[in-house]
């Protein structure tokens, strides 16, 4: 990923902060709007140095569409997995087979790895314990085949297929 210049990063953090302010103070009035815009202008001058991976090209339409399409998919996955966990909790003899398995990821950027780990953790039944380079350590609630290939195929590849549309 090529380096974003400082101006792009500054625009990025200014837009994110302003949108956040607009959402927080939903019934608008003029004074609040002006104060919020000034505050996000000043803060973005200082914080632009920290957002190394973002810039103007984070706002390309393909990425935004990918992100918006990803949200319903992850919500549906959460509901399905929650129903399975509910079945386990309600059954009287607790049919669990826990294990900590290792899986490989092919995502390169830190932001992509963060999204992958959060998605794995949000679906019940799998919990990311650690990420070390390309290795992801996952605690599974119920898994039959604990080999690395199977874990990669059933857990990480499923999310990467969708994440690849908008992160590297």
């Amino acid at each position, binding site marked *: 990923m090529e380096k974003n210049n400082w101006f792009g990063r500054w625009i990025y953090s200014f837009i994110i902060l302003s949108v956040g302010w607009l959402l927080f103070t939903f019934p608008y009035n003029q004074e609040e709007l002006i104060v919020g815009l000034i505050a996000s202008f000043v803060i973005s001058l200082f914080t632009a140095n920290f957002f190394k991976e973002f810039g103007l090209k984070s706002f390309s339409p393909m990425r935004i569409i990918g992100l918006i399409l990803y949200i319903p998919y992850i919500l549906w996955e959460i509901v399905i997995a929650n129903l399975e*966990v509910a079945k386990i909790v309600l059954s009287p003899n607790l049919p669990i087979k826990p294990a900590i398995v290792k899986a490989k990821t092919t995502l390169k950027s830190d932001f992509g790895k963060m999204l992958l780990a959060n998605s794995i953790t949000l679906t019940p039944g799998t919990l990311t314990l650690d990420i070390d380079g390309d290795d992801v350590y996952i605690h599974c609630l119920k898994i039959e085949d604990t080999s690395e290939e199977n874990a990669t195929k059933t857990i990480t590849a499923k999310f990467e297929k969708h994440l690849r549309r908008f992160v590297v």
Partner: protein
Amino acid sequence: MEIIGIILISIGVIFSTLGALGLIRMPDIYNRLQTSTKATTLGAFSTIIGVGFMHPAWLIKTILIAFFILMTAPISSHNLGKAAHKAGIPLTDKTQIDECPQKEENK
């Protein structure tokens, strides 16, 4: 609108109770994290969105709160799991395999 809200809030309340039940029944820390925190996250998410549907003027604010919970819950549960694993809290007897490397250092 109201009926969608009532259904969503009922689903949320049921999942919160299931999460609390999982917290009591599961044998070790990692399984408790699995069943409880995430079932409760779905429960709170669905309750808050349901309130937004029943009171449409509040919809944006409630969606904001719900997405904040959805973003932060995995981070805190991941941190708790990592801390417990580093502390060497034992896994339950049913565990098949442990490939995470910190375990050997603790022995």
